[in-house]
């Protein structure tokens, strides 16, 4: 046996090696193409944001900036109330991610741990409600909020967004809670602990990392949301950065051409928070995002 394999290795060493090298090269080539396609828009937005405006419109377009400027960022912050929109975005995204995770946790605990008739039906109600298109419910929602005097209310915006991401969060969380061993909770109940004490002192310490990850994921989803703020945030006290960006894009006072310099700068500032979250928490985010699909 030993001699046969020795013989083979001496017989065709270069053939196998070449095949291996070619295979490696092909992998790296494909990865390079993939990275180019994924990163191209980011590169283009980023260099546009630091290129002086008069150099942005050169023919042929310049792939590498010759001069670097922060003028576009300053002009952008003058064109819209940037700090105001930024804090609106943060309040909206943090508020709705925290509220959605709290509500989903309570509901998921009931669905995962308490045995009652129809718990499957309630779970299906949550999951299937993802399919109801957000856009189809906007008109009645607008009427409802208008009648209640809640258009432009931060609470209403947070409530709507929290509701939108709750089904997905419940879907991820129920199977997760089900796989946490129940013995400690049962022991606490036997010791006479009430439900809220069990939740607060026993369950939450165990699931805290999971809740934190869901807060991060839901923050990203809410940070990226356009439709609810576009319809229900009409004053500068509630408008988010995504609304600011699309208003720049469709603003007729900007003339025929879109203000690419301002939009690039604004886009970069909108990418930075989610980019940081991705860089720090990518393992957790990927693990939890793919959890629902891969059982």
């Amino acid at each position, binding site marked *: 046996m030993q001699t046969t394999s020795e013989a083979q290795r001496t017989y065709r060493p270069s053939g196998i090696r070449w095949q291996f090298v070619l295979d490696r090269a092909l992998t790296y080539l494909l990865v390079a193409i993939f990275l180019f396609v994924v990163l191209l*828009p980011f590169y283009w937005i980023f260099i546009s944001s630091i290129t002086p405006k008069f150099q942005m419109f050169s023919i042929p377009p310049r792939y590498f900036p010759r001069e670097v400027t922060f003028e576009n960022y300053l002009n952008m912050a003058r064109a819209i109330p940037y700090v105001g929109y930024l804090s609106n975005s943060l309040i909206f995204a943090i508020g709705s991610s925290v509220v959605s995770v709290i509500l989903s946790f309570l509901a998921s605990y*009931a669905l995962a741990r308490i045995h009652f008739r129809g718990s499957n039906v309630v779970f299906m109600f*949550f999951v299937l409600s993802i399919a109801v*298109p957000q856009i*189809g419910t906007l008109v009645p929602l607008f009427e409802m909020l208008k009648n209640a005097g809640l258009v432009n209310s931060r609470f209403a915006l947070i409530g709507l967004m929290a509701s939108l991401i709750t089904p997905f969060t419940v879907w991820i969380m129920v199977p997760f809670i089900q796989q946490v061993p129940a013995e400690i909770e049962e022991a606490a109940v036997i010791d006479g602990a009430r439900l809220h004490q069990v939740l607060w002192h026993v369950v939450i310490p165990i699931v805290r990392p999971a809740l934190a990850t869901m807060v991060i994921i839901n923050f990203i989803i809410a940070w990226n949301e356009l439709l609810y703020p576009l319809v229900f945030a009409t004053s500068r006290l509630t408008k988010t950065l995504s609304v600011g960006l699309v208003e720049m894009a469709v603003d007729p006072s900007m003339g025929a051409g879109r203000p690419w310099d301002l939009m690039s700068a604004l886009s970069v500032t909108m990418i930075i928070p989610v980019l940081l979250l991705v860089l720090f928490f990518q393992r957790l985010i990927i693990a939890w995002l793919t959890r629902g699909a891969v059982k």
Partner: protein
Amino acid sequence: MVWQRYLAAFLLLLPAAGLRLLTTLYPFIETFRLSLTNYNPAFPPEKYIGLANMTRLVHDIGVSSSITFTIIYVVSSTLLQLAFGIAVASLLNSQFRGRSVVRAITLIPWAIPMVVAAIGFSWLYDRDYGMISDLVARVTGVRIAWLSGFATARIAVIATNVWKSTPFLALVFLAALQGVPAELYEAARVDGANRFQTFGSITLPLILPQATTMGLFMLIWQLASFDLIYTMTGGGPGFATSVLAYSIYRAAFGGLNFGYASAMGLILFAVVLVAGGLALLLYRRVEVNY
């Protein structure tokens, strides 16, 4: 005690379920009522007009072309996202240096706002100053005003949508592939299977269940997509890239035709229902075959 258990479950479910009922179920039902009226908040007295909105819908060219493009957009996006998603996943599943960095980068398109992607691509597609137009012009000699042509605008928005969601699907499929024991691939390689044979006989069958689930999910989810079209083309040129969700938004918050927009909303619900039903049938078949 039984009633205590039910009370606890009820109290825990109440906040989430109550919010969902109020913001989804109630508007869903209210849409049916509003679709039978001519309600316009600028001209208040709302009047019952029966199925007049529906007859108007049938003759509305904007709506019929929106439905056509919605189907083209959703079906072609989903198929391309699945195909590229599987291809990228099997690429990321092979051995190479810097794999974890590439994996992190793969998450970025999912994490950024759709509006930012739409703006970035519009700028890349710009006829004179955009990099994509320039690269295409250098290679083919033809300079294309992507977003101004009927077919090119459709290609451009679908390509952007595929760019945005393919990496997410790739990560889902990659997670599925990482559950596959490495010995399986080793064995295939020892048996002399090449890259394509391994893909066809190991990778593809193993992620078929996930691919079907995700395809179903993407299909239904993208039927209601709005952000990309709104930011990139505004449905133009003409009605070339108008999708149903965008038409509803225009009718409701551009024209304040709340009654008419609600009728269009019902069409969207119906489309989602039909697509969901068809996709479920397909899902069943794949499950049995697999």
